[in-house]
């Protein structure tokens, strides 16, 4: 739009014969950065919390927007493919919670480590997986990020340990990864995520104890989306202050729908860990639009009005978009262009995911063991042997 105006002005100026300053390129008309006031975090066993005044640059804003939009579109596409029965089995969608994944990734490095539960598609993307690989894994093809053998719940990539099916089982694992970081002295940390349902599992508390005792550089993050499958937090937990559950571990309660809040809190938490102070616990208050999984309509334990309300008032992508537009950090067209590009990327990925061949039968039993001579695994009857190559 501005380009057109500037062209017209230039043309008219030339006609008038006046000297013309070549109009500046369009993007310099945007503000390169702006300061925002974000919600204060509740703190537990901490003297001060994360900053409430944050700076967002235009580039960062566009990058967060693109990432969140990609995640949103990817999840919606997965929903579509599931309903077409191209994706089968279990599929737990992350839409509504994009700000968490993007905010966390913004404040840690790719060399840090992350582990989460089964609502993992978003994290697989922010940790370095491509949409193509993720979608191909959902459809179980050989181009998938886990070679088609893992599926929705078991996606992995470098420094991202999944993708775990059993509720709460990933938390002690995360502490172990943090121990390895401390032991190797590489100044890396581990972000260990779990949900509000998992917060009631015994092994979480065992992990808190070990992490605090040995001062492990782990950030425990409870993604509280208010419902553990179909049970609301009030009906499942004696204390819904999940950030205080660490008891001897300092905690923060963060607005998980605001990407800047999450980013700032994670930055604070990362500094805390890297300075050797030990573990820290963050509760991200967020919301998922879909049900627990694709088999759950999501409306038998909450009202449609509630979902609509969150979508209209606190949607992470809309919030970021409004912020950027009202501060002249981007134009509507620019964001629309990003939307179009994202849509294309998702379409291509879905196309790939639908047409890529499945892993061959020979690979079915591979990777059971390691460093063993290839062994024979029995198939459906004693005479159907499959080979397992380590």
């Amino acid at each position, binding site marked *: 739009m501005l380009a057109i105006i500037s062209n017209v002005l230039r043309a008219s100026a030339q006609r008038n014969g006046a000297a013309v300053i070549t109009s500046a390129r369009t993007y310099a008309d945007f503000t390169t950065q702006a300061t925002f006031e974000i919600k204060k975090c509740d703190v537990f066993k901490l003297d001060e919390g994360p900053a409430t005044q944050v700076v967002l640059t235009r580039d960062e804003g566009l990058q967060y927007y693109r990432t969140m939009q990609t995640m949103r579109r990817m999840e919606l596409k997965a929903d579509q493919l599931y309903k077409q029965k191209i994706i089968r*089995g279990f599929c737990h969608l992350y839409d509504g919670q994009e700000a968490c994944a993007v905010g966390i990734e913004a404040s840690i490095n790719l060399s840090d480590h992350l582990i989460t539960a089964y609502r993992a598609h978003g994290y697989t993307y922010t940790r370095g997986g491509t949409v193509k690989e993720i979608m191909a894994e959902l459809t179980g093809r050989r181009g998938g990020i886990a070679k088609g053998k893992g599926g929705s719940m078991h996606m992995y990539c470098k420094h991202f340990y999944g993708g775990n099916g*059993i509720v709460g089982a990933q938390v002690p694992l995360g502490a172990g990864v943090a121990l390895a970081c401390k032991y190797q002295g590489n100044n890396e940390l581990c972000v260990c995520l779990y949900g509000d349902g998992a917060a009631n599992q015994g092994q979480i508390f065992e992990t808190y104890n070990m992490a605090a005792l040995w001062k492990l550089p782990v950030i425990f993050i409870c993604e509280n989306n208010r419902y553990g499958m179909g049970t609301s937090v009030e009906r*499942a937990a004696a204390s819904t202050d999940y950030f205080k559950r660490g008891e001897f571990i300092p905690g923060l309660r963060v607005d998980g729908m605001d990407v800047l809040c999450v980013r700032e809190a994670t930055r604070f938490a990362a500094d805390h860990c890297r300075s050797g102070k030990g573990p820290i616990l963050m509760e991200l208050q967020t919301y998922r639009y879909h049900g627990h999984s694709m088999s759950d309509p999501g409306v038998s334990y909450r009202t449609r009005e509630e979902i609509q309300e969150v979508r209209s008032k606190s949607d992470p992508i809309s919030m970021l978009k409004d912020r950027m537009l009202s501060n002249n950090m981007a134009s509507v067209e620019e964001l629309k262009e990003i939307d179009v590009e994202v849509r294309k990327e998702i379409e291509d990925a879905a196309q790939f995911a639908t047409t890529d061949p499945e892993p061959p039968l020979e690979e079915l039993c591979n990777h059971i063991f390691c460093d063993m001579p290839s062994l024979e695994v029995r198939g459906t009857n004693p005479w159907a042997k499959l080979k397992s190559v380590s």
Partner: protein
Amino acid sequence: MAAAARLFIRGANSKLSIAPSSLGVTLLKLSPNCSSRTKTQRRHATHFTFQPDPVPSQYGPTQKMNLFQSITSALDNTLASDPTAVIFGEDVAFGGVFRCTVGLRDKYGKDRVFNTPLCEQGIVGFGIGVAVAGATAIAEIQFADYIFPAFDQIVNEAAKYRYRSGNLFDCGNLTIRAPWGCVGHGALYHSQSPEAFFAHCPGLKIVIPRGPIQAKGLLLSCIADKNPCIFFEPKILYRAAVEQVPEEPYTIPLSQAEILQEGSDVTLVSWGTQIHVLKEVASMAQEKLGVSCEVIDLQTILPWDIETVCKVVGFPLERTVQLSSFGLRCGQTEIIEVSLQADNKTERKTQNVGSHKDRKTSKSRWSKQDACLSVTRHR
């Protein structure tokens, strides 16, 4: 609570095969093979036909029920007759993810049917406490795959309570229920058959029904039994298995194997969903190969009815074939095989035929042709 929506699992999409008369056609169908998959993604889901039992006449009026309804009926009977009975587990209040406890909370109150948080170890530990204190505890583990956090409580606490207290205390009032076995789309964590893990544990009873009539009777026996019991319910049969089930409470004795079909050439031993595969195999073997098969349903896995099986095997029968859904190594069938061979004085040949556990690509295959093949090989 209305709770019409199915929260977690879609209803079992088992493709029930066509009527027995077209078994010949079914035989000709090739065994499903991954590499021959067509573009349209033919789904080789758990392929078996549920074979309903004849209507029992000795227990009074019957009603058409599927497996989850028969479980609800058993629980309803228990809550009505036993004022100390309580049912708890994840999501049982609204009816459960498989609808096994629908309507019970409304009928008997929220202090008798209640939800627990997400903590299997806690659920079983808590259940042991309830049982020791004298109340009848019926704990639900949402899927048998999640029973492992509770493994310590079951094996180290529940099973040994009576013994270590010299019979002063016991948790016989405890019954643990869990959906069990392959379902077609369950993959790693919604398809497991963990009965073998518990099979070495004295003090515990493990029961697996093959259909609604057995389920109600066996569950009521488990609840009445003075030992801690684990009752595994084949999840693929929840909707697929429909029989005429007596409305009044009745019990089926534990540790008694049932001979479903007499035969003279081969003995087929199994439990749960596999029984239906075996029944089909038996008729196929009779039709196609002229082999007469004896089909035995163990029903109670631990302690199992070794006498019936041995007596049957000891007779002119030369071979025993076992089919279990815990396909790979060291399953329950291996345990039975070893016991049989140790017990028998003359050498008998036993053979283990496994079925493929679910892989992520949902290909559980109780291929009838495969099972039939195994029978042929024995001769």
